[in-house]
């Protein structure tokens, strides 16, 4: 990674976001394997560079919309570990009071407009957030995260085209982790770069190294500036890797079936955005090893605090069933 001129505080900021996501997700994985979390969880491990790089290029006013694999996006946008963890446990102290769960975390106060369990379901909504910015002459931008699989949904097509025709400040960030569930992206589309689809909407389509958080930041920042300047939407394809399962617990569920060969899996696992960034930060002497370790310790501790708090958070009252229905 060569990123001359990247401000030190930005690098530290991004590094921190990546690390926060990693430590949180590792713990979620552990908790799920121990049978402590209800429902399904889809971890973001291996893809942290994308959310971290993109969100570092945003202000607090800018909004994001997320997916079933959404924890990383919430954290990168500044989400609170405690309220997230409590939500994963389905507790009253969670972001959504236990009504949302892993696939539906939102924090409207920090412009995190919600994770959405329907593949492709967030794109139209992100267009709407962009429409809002345009309508109110705000310089807010709207970001939408989605996967390679989602790029084959009709909503992708309609959303990019609509954002383009109205010249809306929307940045479509495709996290191409090479798989939609068990189906390789190359089997679900006959093209190498999803970014090429931008041609069909008359907007820029860029491929970025989705393992390199600093490159993602640079590419995202350019798109953000373009959008703020009234230049309309951009499609960014971040080539990344899912380090593990589609959903936790997959191994048991698949009953011995495999869909990734050893070499590909090993290669994917080798491309670790945290490791890369750690090396960069160390080699460029951005932070001394002690501070890096201290940071890690701090984050790990706050994940543990979040777990403890989530455990202590009460189950939702049955009366809550009928709350939050009408505004």
């Amino acid at each position, binding site marked *: 990674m060569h990123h001359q001129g990247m401000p030190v505080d930005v690098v530290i900021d991004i590094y921190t976001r990546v690390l926060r996501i990693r430590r949180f997700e590792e713990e979620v994985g552990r908790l799920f394997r121990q049978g402590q979390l209800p429902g399904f969880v889809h971890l973001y491990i291996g893809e942290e560079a994308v959310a971290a790089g993109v969100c570092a290029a945003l202000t607090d006013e800018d*909004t994001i*919309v997320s997916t079933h694999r959404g924890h990383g996006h919430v954290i990168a946008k500044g989400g609170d570990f405690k309220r997230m963890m409590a939500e994963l446990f389905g507790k009253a102290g*969670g*972001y*959504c*009071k*236990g*009504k*949302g769960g892993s696939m*539906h975390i*939102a*924090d*409207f106060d920090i412009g995190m*407009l*919600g994770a*959405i*369990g*329907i593949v492709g*379901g967030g*794109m*139209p*909504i*992100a*267009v*709407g*957030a*962009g*429409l*809002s*910015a*345009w*309508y*109110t002459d705000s310089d807010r931008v*709207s970001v939408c995260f989605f996967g390679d699989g989602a790029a084959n949904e*009709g*909503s992708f*097509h*309609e*959303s990019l*085209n*609509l954002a383009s*025709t*109205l010249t809306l400040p929307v940045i479509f960030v495709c996290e191409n982790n090479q798989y939609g569930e068990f189906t390789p992206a190359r089997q679900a589309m006959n093209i190498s770069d999803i970014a090429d689809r931008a041609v069909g909407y008359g907007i820029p389509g860029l491929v970025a190294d989705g393992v390199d958080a600093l490159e993602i930041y640079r590419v995202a920042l350019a798109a953000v500036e373009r959008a703020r300047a009234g230049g309309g939407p951009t499609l960014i394809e971040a080539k990344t890797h899912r380090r593990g399962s589609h959903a936790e617990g997959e191994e048991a569920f698949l009953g011995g079936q495999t869909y990734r060969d050893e070499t590909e899996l090993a290669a994917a696992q080798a491309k670790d955005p945290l490791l890369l960034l750690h090396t960069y930060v160390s080699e460029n002497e951005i932070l001394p090893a002690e501070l890096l370790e201290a940071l890690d310790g701090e984050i790990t501790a706050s994940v543990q605090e979040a777990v403890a708090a989530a455990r202590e958070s009460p189950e939702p009252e049955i009366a809550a069933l009928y*709350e*939050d*229905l*009408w*505004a």
Partner: protein
Amino acid sequence: MPRKTYVAAIQEALAEEMRRDPSVFLIGEDVRIGVFPSTRGLYAEFGDKRVIDTPISELAVAGAGIGAAITGLRPIVDLMFGTFLYLAFDQIANQAGAMRYMYGGQTKASLVFMVQNGAGSSAGHHHSQAVHQFFMNMPQIKVILPSSPYDGKGLLKSAIRDDNPVLFLHSLSLGGKRSEVPTEEYLIPIGLADVKRAGSDVTICAAGPAVHTALAAAKTLASAGVDAEVIDLRSLSPWDKGAVLESVAKTGRFVAVDESFPTCSAASEWAATVAEEAFHQLKAPVQRVTNKDVPMPFSPVLEKAALPSADDVIAAVQRTLS
């Protein structure tokens, strides 16, 4: 009071609310020219930003409305025909219809989806289905199906001001209908029924165009000495159960008239509710009058036969009397 068409009343509601609140805007396919004349003239008054033509992309347009709503605006999303909304079903059911709850009350989606509902213009099955029953099923969406210009205007204004997603259904077959519409501003609360004809022998419950079928039937019945009460629900979700139960307590007889396919219809809901909650007041079995249970045919002759007629209603009333 001036008598206005349904189309004019809707147009007034839209214009008045857009004048009142700058966060209200209209988005959809060809809303500027106006596929339905009710959106005409708004573009001239409100311009590019507030009357937005879109590509033919129902899913994205519906979702864009939702995204705009949760970031503070009050979109009116025109999806044209009820069936086109099938393409946006995910956004409406999964997102608008659950977002507030799913996110623990953090947000609200204050927007209106507007479509033409039901049959009557020989447009063939793809342009002639009623959709209200689907959205009545969804816990967090309001549904409105007015039968008169007066009700349409007052309810649409309330829908636009409501902080929740509202599906506002209009009916091509009411396009030309006129009623008195005051010059002064008025609102009709969502969820309140209106007794369109008072009567003591039987309660006929309907909404939208079916109200006129019910009224026609009531007129004929009157000359045969049967005094029917016709309740126009106007709002289908929430619906005014109290008004219906009160009427049934008086009449002891109940007929639901609904222009839609029979199974799991609004008529089924009303009939089930009356049977459940007013059983001991009932002197006869509840009756449902709906479309015949077939897709909507094109031929005007068949289309007419497929829809509930005044004769069907009269027959149903007579079944409650025998």
